[in-house]
């Protein structure tokens, strides 16, 4: 069986994805999870692992949740930037 990827590696990959998409596309948590499972493979990367990685990104403050008609994962926004 393939060795599972670490939470840190998934969190870093998620962060890069959010960073690359900043200002271009707002990503939902499910977008990130699907992308990670596809990137690392479902045998190495489970949804629970992705959930834990997302939690670490939020707890560390590297990413934040935002709301614009739906919930998204973004880099910390500028104060008062709501449209």
């Amino acid at each position, binding site marked *: 069986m393939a060795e599972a990827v670490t939470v840190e590696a998934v969190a870093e990959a998620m962060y890069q994805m959010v960073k690359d998409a900043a200002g271009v596309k707002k990503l*939902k*948590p*499910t977008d990130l*999870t699907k992308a990670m499972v596809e990137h690392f493979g479902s045998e190495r990367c489970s949804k629970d692992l992705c*959930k834990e990685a*997302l*939690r670490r990104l*939020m*707890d560390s*403050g590297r990413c*934040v*949740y*935002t*709301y*614009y*008609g*739906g*919930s998204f994962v973004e880099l910390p*926004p500028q*104060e*008062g*930037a*709501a*449209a």
Partner: protein
Amino acid sequence: MADEKQTPTTPNLDELERGPWPSFVREIKKAAEKSPMSRGLLGVLERSYTDKIGHWKHGGIVGVRGYGGGVIGRYSDLPEEFPEVAHFHTIRVNQPAGWFYTSDALRSICDLWERRGSGLTNLHGSTGDIILLGTRTEELEPTFSELTQAGFDLGGSGSDIRTPSCCVGPARCEWACYDTLNLTYDLTMHYQDEIHRPAFPYKFKIKAAGCPNDCVASIARADLSIIGTWRGPIQVDQAAVKAYTKNGIDIQADVVDRCPSKCMAWDGKALTIANEWCVKCMHCINVMTKALRPGPERGAAILVGAKAPIVQGAMLSSVLVPFMKLEPPYTALKDLVGKMLELWAEEGKSRERIGEFIQRVGLGNFLEAIGMEPRPEMVAHPRENPYVFYEEYLEEEPAEAKA
């Protein structure tokens, strides 16, 4: 700009103080006597009534560190004119199941909010949460810290599981067919991650009603409506029924004739019920509370899909499980909800509620995906489209038969 101490003149809002009923304007004015933020709110509201347009921007910030729900970001689009309400964020606080508080707990929230926010509250919002109206961004983390020290947590907002809510249930109501309070507390603790971290296409509301009276209106508002019900015959005390006739109740007109499924009969001496036709509307039980009681085997019906009109029109919940025993640790219910959430999270479109998702993919496909067998109780009404073909009719004849 609103004067720092003087309440602004509000001729338009003053109209909303007329009449004998409660007025939110009157309450804001009371708060404005000591809260600059409330004074600013009066100013910007008056301006909105004059301009016939809302002056709020919504969105952006949604929580405190680590949370994706519980804060609804709100900013004024007239920050120079009304600096007191340049930020006016709402905080949702997870209410206790059944909305039972001690006066000390309520005081601690009110005291906190007068220091950290506008002092204006809404108990309770339509989600069921305690709503704390109006604060600045820099006050969010300290408020959260004080709330947790007082034993409270933030509720849900955005695309997450919203704070589960319930009726008062067995705490004050003899019709409760299961312990709504215990279930709500259990689900709240079980879904902590999903309440605080949005992971779904859109919101998901859980409301638990103890009986078919559905005092929390779960059938109209909740994606997952858990409505108490029973199996077996309604329990009848014939002597008590007769006592009602002596006290002025017209059993035929007030009870029997109003039964929606016409399953009752009254011969002047005894009330008989064809229980197999009873649709559990609760009308007869509500009229004769001393004479009739729900059947002895109690549990809940699980319904799915209600929503208010946002992206699409309003929908009522429809039956998924006609009867389920609800006792701790509620494993069957959690398994079912887990399967539904996983499927919807995977396949749902952005801002698509689970009811809309079921309509889009079809109930048959939804049931197959979550591993449930279809049941007659799931059918809301007979099919309207005659152009429906079943797979057995579409099987092609073998090639040799054609030849």
